[in-house]
């Protein structure tokens, strides 16, 4: 029970960090990075926590519920990186350049 509540709280925490990253990052690409990674990790922890917490409240069809949650988890792990990659590619193709904060190679001399 304690483990399930810990997993749920960790999932909510990472999803909150993802939404904060959506507001606080300056650029489209950094925003994609923070939001997609944090919400995907938060969703994984949240699904594990829900399936462990439902073990105490579901009586006979707990296995069906957990297998449905597992199918959703596999689907999310396939679709979330693909979607964010497509968004980043569309942003680059539509002319938005990345606002680079730290660029070492801009004023570099030619190496002999």
């Amino acid at each position: 029970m304690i483990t399930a509540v810990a997993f749920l709280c960790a999932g909510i925490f990472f999803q909150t960090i993802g939404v904060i990253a959506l507001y606080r990052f300056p650029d489209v690409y950094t925003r994609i990075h923070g939001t997609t990674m944090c919400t995907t990790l938060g969703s994984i922890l949240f699904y594990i926590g829900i399936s462990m917490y439902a073990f105490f409240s579901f009586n006979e069809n707990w296995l069906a519920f957990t297998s449905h949650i597992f199918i959703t988890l596999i689907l999310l792990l396939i679709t979330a990186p693909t979607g964010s990659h497509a968004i980043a590619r569309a942003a680059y193709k539509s002319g938005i350049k990345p606002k680079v904060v730290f660029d070492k190679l801009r004023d570099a001399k030619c190496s002999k």
Partner: protein
Amino acid sequence: MILYLIISIILSILALLCWLKVIISRTIVDKMVALDAANTIVISFLILLGAIFKEIVYVDVAIVYAMLSFVSIIYISRYLEGCK
């Protein structure tokens, strides 16, 4: 039960913040990023609803919602990319 109430309130606030970001951002790519985050949070909320009401149908709705979200994101990004 009080845990379910607290978690559903926090998830509702997160989803509303994502939709507010969809409304107030300027470019369309920002809107797409916020929409993707909102869809992920709404899928988590649907699974939580399934655990609250002890129904498996909500999880099936979450699967279909995830597929529709993925197809819409891919379609809009292919449209913005400019190639057919």
